[in-house]
């Protein structure tokens, strides 16, 4: 399958990329989200500006928190000792994207710009309070992940704006996990649950929870978080959280003929239990 015709330009710097991008243009990094939709003619940008060669957009730095360059690949994130230490759930989620060949070239920036609801990393970014750093012709701005993802394949990104990096707080003192129910064929998340628990002895001081896959975007689950915070994660608390999460995602449910909304909603509760088990086990 061939994509539609487009103009191609290679940018050597962020400024050059922002100068090159036209009204009907898209930025191209790994291309592992964009090219498949272009081949299916679901997208037909008239111009691609290749940012894959911009060194400043790539790499992981850890100082207090994590900053991950937009063109850092899923494999690089999954294999990073810093990410494993400071946000274990993100390393896990990036290690579950596609397969090794896809992870070798697919990038975190492309992944979140695409905003596939069944993708894994966005769920962790929303749970862990990540910040998406964006640059445009008019300057730079930062958006919380929860506000960045708006709806199905829809983000806060304006035309001509470029994601430069993703910042994450250090949650090395948290129990941070991502657990998913993969589609048996595609391995996309039917339900993906990210849980980040801050424990104070036996008590859960703070719980951050997000659900993806079951929903049209990654959704922060305040009800489930409240059900766990201040408890010892006893059965009553976990039961309450598993019930609350269904209400948290009720307005955002996604479904198809094989895995309808009601089923995914139910499974969100099941996988939240498993995620809490994995976080505390």
């Amino acid at each position, binding site marked *: 399958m061939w994509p539609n015709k487009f103009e191609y330009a290679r940018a050597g710097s962020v400024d050059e990329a922002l100068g090159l991008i036209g009204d009907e243009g898209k930025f191209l990094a790994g291309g592992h989200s964009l090219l*498949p939709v272009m081949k299916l003619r679901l997208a037909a940008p008239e111009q691609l500006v290749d940012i894959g060669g911009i060194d400043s957009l790539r790499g992981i730095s850890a100082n207090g928190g994590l900053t991950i360059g937009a063109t850092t690949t899923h494999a690089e994130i999954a294999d990073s000792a810093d990410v494993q230490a400071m946000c274990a759930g993100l390393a896990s989620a990036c290690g579950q994207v596609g397969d090794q060949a896809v992870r070798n070239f697919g990038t975190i920036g492309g992944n979140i710009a695409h905003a596939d609801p069944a993708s894994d990393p966005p769920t962790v970014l929303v749970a862990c309070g990540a910040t998406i750093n964006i640059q445009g012709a008019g300057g730079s701005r930062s958006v919380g992940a929860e506000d960045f993802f708006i709806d199905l394949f829809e983000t806060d990104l304006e035309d001509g704006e470029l994601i430069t990096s993703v910042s994450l707080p250090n949650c090395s003192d948290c129990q941070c996990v991502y657990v998913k129910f993969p589609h048996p064929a595609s391995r996309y998340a039917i339900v993906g649950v990210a849980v980040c628990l801050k424990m104070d002895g036996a008590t859960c001081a703070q719980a951050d929870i997000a659900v993806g896959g079951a929903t049209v975007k990654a959704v922060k689950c305040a009800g489930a978080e409240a059900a766990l915070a201040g408890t010892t994660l006893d059965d009553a608390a976990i039961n309450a959280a598993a019930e609350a999460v269904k209400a948290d995602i009720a307005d955002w449910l996604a479904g198809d003929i094989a895995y309808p909304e009601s089923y995914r909603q139910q499974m969100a509760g099941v996988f939240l239990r498993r995620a809490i088990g994995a976080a505390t086990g």
Partner: protein
Amino acid sequence: MQVSMTVNGVAQEADVDPRTLLVHFLREALDLTGTKIGCDTSQCGACAVHLNGKVLKSCTLLAVQADGCEVTTIEGLAEGGEHHPMQTAFWENHGLQCGYCTPGMIMASAAFVRDNPGASEAEIRHYLEGNICRCTGYHNIVKAVKQVADAAAGA
């Protein structure tokens, strides 16, 4: 658009339409038809090649993105007239039925064992999730990869 890359050790240069996928460039411009197009949606792995040593599904990259890179295809895996150990293992274990997925299976497996000598059968099966054999001939494929993994670990 002018593109230059090293394919199987040979410098190549060509003028391509920017929308040319790497797999089309390899197969049609360079006549390296060992790399197959299967699903064409980055799921099946029949088009797997190495780009700068990493496994890539060449249906999901533009040829222009590979500018300046080193590409290895199944045709370039053997060295000095000798099969790569993974090719030998697929031969010895009959790790194929129709053979269509085989170039991709071998390219993916060769990179995997290089990075994971001594990999277990479970690890091999998990890793090969990105390569689909529609003959369902996985049993001997896994046997072949395990043989090379064991040898690489000195087992």
